[in-house]
């Protein structure tokens, strides 16, 4: 099989997409946002419970989408839970660089180990939007508060 395909659809990705973590509505959320990929019609909703110390105490997502967008959303929830808002945003900047095949110096080595499974997306430029949808939605939810919309 094509090496690029093997990397894109590696087991970790497929596992995240079939068994997404933190899936469903988060009742305690004080921030939420909805993302929409007009190319494929996919939608994702991200819920965040941010505490008084600006820390993401809990996070969840729901929506339907391709394996890449679902895995990316699931992985994101794993990665940002417990972090401060500033840390999450920095991680997102690094993630965007990573999936575009650029230097992702913002990502600490420990995090890099987890996020590297998404690096294969960079060989598929048409799919970068799928990988970044949940992250952009997370950011706009943090910025705009409840029921933010992002295109």
């Amino acid at each position, binding site marked *: 099989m094509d090496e*690029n*395909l093997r990397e894109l*659809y590696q087991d970790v990705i497929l596992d995240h997409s079939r068994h997404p973590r933190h899936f469903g509505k988060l009742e305690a959320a004080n921030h939420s946002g909805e993302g929409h990929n007009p190319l*494929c019609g*996919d939608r994702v909703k991200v819920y965040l419970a941010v505490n008084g110390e600006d820390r993401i105490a809990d996070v969840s997502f729901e929506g339907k989408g*391709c394996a890449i967008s679902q895995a990316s959303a699931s992985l994101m929830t794993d990665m940002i839970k417990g972090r401060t808002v500033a840390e999450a945003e920095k991680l997102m900047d690094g993630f965007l660089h990573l999936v575009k095949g650029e230097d992702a110096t913002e990502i600490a080595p420990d995090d890099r180990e987890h996020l590297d499974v998404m690096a294969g997306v960079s060989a598929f430029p048409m*799919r970068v939007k799928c990988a970044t949808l949940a992250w952009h939605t997370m950011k706009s939810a943090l910025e705009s508060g409840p029921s933010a919309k992002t295109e």
Partner: protein
Amino acid sequence: MTMPPKIASLRPFDPLAVRADFEILSREVYGKPLVYLDNAASAQKPDIVLDAMRDFATSEYANVHRGVHFLSGKATDRYEAARESVRKFLHAASADEIVFTKGGTEAMNLVSYSYLSPRIQPGDEIVLTTMEHHSNIVPWHFLRERQGAVLKWVDVADDGSLSADAVDAAIGPKTKLVALTHMSNVLGTVTPLKEIIARAHAKGVPVMVDGCQGAVHSQVDVQDLDVDFYALTGHKLYGPTGIGALYAKRAHLKAMRPFNGGGEMIREVTREAISYADPPARFEAGTPPIIEAVGLGVALDYLSGFDRAAISAHEHDLLDYATAAIEDLNWVRIIGRAPGKGAILSFEAEGMHAHDLATILDREGVAVRAGHHCAQVLMERFDVASTTRASFALYNTRDEVDQFVSALHKARKILG
């Protein structure tokens, strides 16, 4: 001396010989032979079209209808000859009933703006079907938003077929237009146009047909159909992008207000007033896509050079062959099973999002479309976010269908 009558001799249709007419079909992608099954989005262009555009641009090009110089005359002749090719292709009564547009979308927007908008009062109705492409939905939504028009939706049956009775039932005393597709770009459904048009006319309602897919796969006779407006686009008809056409009955064109204003569409302009040129020039403001029009004319002549029924039989063979290969797979759901449908195969595959599937097919050299196909109303109707679509053209082969099916099984192995 009288010339003997020209007898049009048709070129025998042989898909393998036809493939040699399209240089791009011999290329590879990712080291695999290209299997191009995204024809409903845009078709490839035969070398003869591309060569003709270059030849024209290098030997006869100038602006049209303006200069008195040699090249301007030549270019005008070629541009008008292209209009005649469209007339012949649609069997219109007169070339004056053919307006060049930049594509099917502009053709339908022209009907909306120039014909229908001045005739709409709040509460007036436009009848359309749930399988329309956005280009045959959004122009009517404009009239809903701006003028209070009401959109009356006629639903397709579960197999994707459309009944003339259902359309007829939706036409009431306030209906000002029926706007529907000749052939669905998702389901492949071919609409019973002749019956629908006759029944709409019996109630005094004109009919606009989106022919962007239908004109590719069947021989259209606008006079026999008695259709009021018929829109087509060049790039799906093996012609260039940036060119399309609207057929409209002469009486409609004469009664329509201009769309764009500018050069070429006027008779006289003074400081106080303007008067408009006769159709079709009235609707072709500015310098038109001249080279593209020449290319479209050549593409239509190329297509008409074959026995169209033989092309249609070949495309249906590919559709039947592909359908037979996937319909029994318990993880595939075909969307659109209308009797007599055209060569478009849309489906959902269990556990596989259309974009993941299309990515894997792509790496096998197989180009298909994945998404909502600019038909979100239809996606909602069938409760899907997106589908994967293989659409066939005259140059596709059974071998290519085999490659498509084998790539599909491969995707199942990776994702399923």
